[in-house]
């Protein structure tokens, strides 16, 4: 039988005031299996840990129970302490007598009795604990980044810099994301394209980076360190290696559609370059609108292409990549403005969303950077900006704050003033959130010196009267309703996860929050990792974020991956499911129950466990009808013994 040592912590007064630790020590000293027992003010302190180590050595203990706070806080402290002295760390149990006992009770007698039972269950569990070793598996030193916006680009560059190969998968025909659409960036007002394109070029030329554009993740197999990911690449029908970018094809293309790059404010042909600095630099054919797939209908571009770069017969291709870890950087889209009927988007050409206004401000935009409104090309003299359009509205739209709108709206107003000196911008706001570095100064300078008027209140409706947009709102500071005759209205739409990310989350078996953003492993302490091993998060895919935050998170996630890649193999917690092959009937219930895909039927119809994938959640164990599946160090016998103690 194991020689067990029990160490009861006072936690200052946290435990001692409610639990009679002296009485507890006396009672437990005679409990079967307990060889040694002591209590101390702070077990987590160095003297406390030394006390445990000394007792293991002198009393030759082979099991330790520390009765203290929650194991999420100090389990690793005590595990490390016992390992230093040569005891396997799985021979240590933490009995939580603080959060689950002293903090929630007042009656000393009752609390002491409960603490006694909690410690006894830990002793019973410990009696049957096995000494375990971490599970290890080989590691493929290649990384996939999904999404080629600023976050994806930054993460890919950092990992390539670290010396590892990167596979970047981008849905669109070029990398660049939403940042390439922006005119200038807050709070420094430097040109977005000027700071992004050098990074895009670096990425395009980096020999460690394999770029898949027009591509999506089709399926995934394997586990952390050893993924096999299938990529589906849609054909672009123009061979980028042959294409000379002469543009003859676009000139003859008869199909005209809305430009995605200009957010529908300009037109493009069915064969097009997404934007001037696109990477890879090549023409691409938009399958949905091109007529050339029926040779009788069209084929003009192919006829004029002297380089013979166009081939309509290219098929969708599939590639399989072996990957060790994945960064998800799928970014954001804007909440459909059509959902907010009272602002008249889609009905009135002079109601725009934030990205459309960026395009109007941009030198590469539909107006060549001139401030003109879409309806009649006149210079707008008064512009109303509406913040929180869809954000912070739990009843009808999105409950969260989209974080970047306060800043970009002010930037819009400022850039507008720089272009139209006698123009008057008004910004309707509920609160101004300017938490970033030098953001508040950026706002105050604009308000004090640039004549930008903030009106505190939400706009009730926008409608057209003549060639003006009438805006009805409230100024809660004067307590009066306000009316403005504006020439243009710009809506700061809430940020939502990018289109198609829901499907990706399902394919990769990831978790998302109630708004559809990817869920981090811990909101404060593990914000760069997904709950699922091997997946890391960067940028607005995890939640609304501005450029500095996206870049920081991307570099952080890259650093996490570099730390992972620096190891020769990956290690995993061994508290996992194990199957008794003789008892398994091969019914397969566990396979459907396992959220991690860790259970598979082998050739002998035994439902085996993939040790690396198993997270030890216990779902398959409770589902197993034959009792063949057991959790290591939490077997049915252990649980039964624990229950027996409580009921005795």
């Amino acid at each position: 039988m194991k020689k067990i040592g029990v160490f009861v912590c006072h936690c200052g007064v946290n435990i001692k005031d409610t639990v009679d630790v002296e009485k507890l020590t006396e009672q437990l000293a005679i409990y079967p299996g307990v060889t040694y027992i002591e209590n101390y003010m702070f077990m987590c302190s160095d003297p406390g840990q030394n006390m445990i180590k000394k007792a293991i050595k002198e009393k030759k203990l082979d099991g330790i129970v520390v009765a203290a706070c929650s194991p999420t806080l100090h389990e690793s402290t005590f595990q490390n302490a016992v390992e230093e002295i040569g005891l396997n760390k799985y021979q240590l149990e933490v009995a939580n007598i603080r959060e689950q006992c002293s903090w929630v009770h007042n009656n000393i007698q009752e609390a002491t009795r409960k603490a006694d039972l909690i410690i006894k269950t830990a002793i019973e569990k410990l009696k049957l604990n096995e000494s375990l070793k971490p599970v290890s598996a080989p590691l493929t030193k290649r990384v996939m980044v999904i999404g080629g916006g600023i976050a994806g680009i930054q993460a890919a560059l950092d990992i390539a810099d670290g010396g590892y190969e990167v596979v970047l998968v981008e849905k669109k025909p070029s990398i660049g994301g939403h940042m390439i659409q922006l005119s200038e960036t807050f709070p420094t007002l430097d040109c977005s394209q000027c700071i992004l394109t050098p990074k895009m070029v670096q990425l395009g030329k980096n020999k460690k980076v394999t770029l898949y554009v027009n591509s999506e993740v089709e399926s995934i197999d394997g586990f952390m360190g050893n993924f096999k990911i299938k990529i589906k690449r849609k054909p672009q029908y123009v061979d980028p290696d042959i294409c000379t970018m002469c543009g003859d094809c676009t000139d003859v293309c008869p199909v005209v559609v809305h430009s995605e790059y200009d957010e529908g404010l300009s037109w493009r042909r069915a064969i097009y370059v997404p934007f001037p600095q696109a990477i890879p630099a090549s023409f691409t054919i938009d399958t949905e609108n091109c007529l050339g797939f029926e040779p009788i209908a069209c084929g003009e571009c192919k006829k004029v292409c002297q380089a013979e770069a166009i081939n309509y017969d290219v098929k969708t291709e599939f590639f399989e990549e072996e990957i060790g870890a994945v960064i998800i950087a799928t970014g954001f889209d804007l909440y459909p403005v059509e959902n907010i009927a009272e602002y008249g988007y889609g009905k009135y050409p002079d109601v725009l969303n934030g990205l459309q206004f960026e395009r109007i401000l941009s030198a590469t935009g539909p107006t060549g950077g001139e401030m003109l409104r879409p309806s009649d090309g006149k210079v707008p003299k008064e512009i109303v900006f509406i913040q929180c359009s869809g954000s912070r509205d739990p009843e009808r739209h999105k409950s969260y704050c989209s974080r970047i709108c306060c800043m970009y709206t002010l930037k819009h107003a400022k850039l507008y003033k720089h272009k139209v000196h006698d123009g008057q911008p008004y910004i309707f706001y509920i609160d101004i959130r300017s938490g970033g570095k030098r953001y508040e100064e950026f706002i105050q300078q604009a308000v004090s010196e640039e004549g930008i008027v903030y009106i505190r209140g939400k706009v009730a409706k926008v409608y057209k009267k003549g060639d003006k947009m009438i805006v009805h709102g409230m100024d809660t500071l004067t307590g009066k309703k306000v009316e403005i005759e504006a020439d243009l209205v710009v809506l700061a739409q809430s940020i939502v996860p990018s289109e198609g990310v829901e499907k990706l989350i399902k394919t990769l078996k990831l978790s998302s929050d109630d708004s559809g953003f990817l869920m981090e492993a811990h909101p404060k302490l593990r914000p760069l990792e997904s709950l699922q091993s091997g997946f890391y998060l960067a940028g607005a895919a995890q939640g609304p974020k501005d450029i500095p935050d996206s870049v920081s998170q991307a570099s952080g996630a890259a650093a996490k991956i570099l730390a992972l890649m620096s190891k020769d193999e990956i290690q995993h917690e061994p508290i996992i499911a194990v199957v008794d092959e003789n008892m398994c009937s091969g019914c397969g219930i566990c396979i459907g129950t396992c959220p991690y895909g860790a259970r598979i039927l082998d050739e002998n119809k035994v439902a085996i466990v993939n040790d690396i994938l198993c997270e030890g959640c216990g779902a398959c164990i409770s589902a197993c009808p034959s009792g063949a599946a057991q959790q290591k160090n939490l077997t049915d016998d252990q649980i039964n013994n624990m229950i027996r103690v409580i009921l005795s």
Partner: protein
Amino acid sequence: MYIRIKAADINNTQVKKIEELSGQNIFDCYQCGNCSSGCPVVDYMDISPNQAMRLAQYGRIEEVLSSEMIWICSTCLQCSSRCPKGIDVAKVMEAFRTINLRNGIGVVNPKQLGITETKDIPPILLICAMRKMTG
């Protein structure tokens, strides 16, 4: 009653006059309300100091000029000492009063005060009343 906000009103000549007289930038105010919360006589005012600042930002100077608050203000300087943006709010209030006084509004003629009034009124109030004319 709603306010029609117009570009022509924002920073109009009246606002510029207030800024000239007070030496303060009206648009520095970010409406925290600290001036009003510290004001010892705000309870007796029809509009509060921060509302006066707000109306001024909209160019609605007339509304402030016709309010009672600018006369209730005793220039104790609480608002000025507390303003986080460094606006001397009391100077702005003085500017409002000055515009009124220059137009002959609210001027006190001591000769018109009866003997009983001059006896009953606290001297400090008389001094205040006289001070108005220095504007």
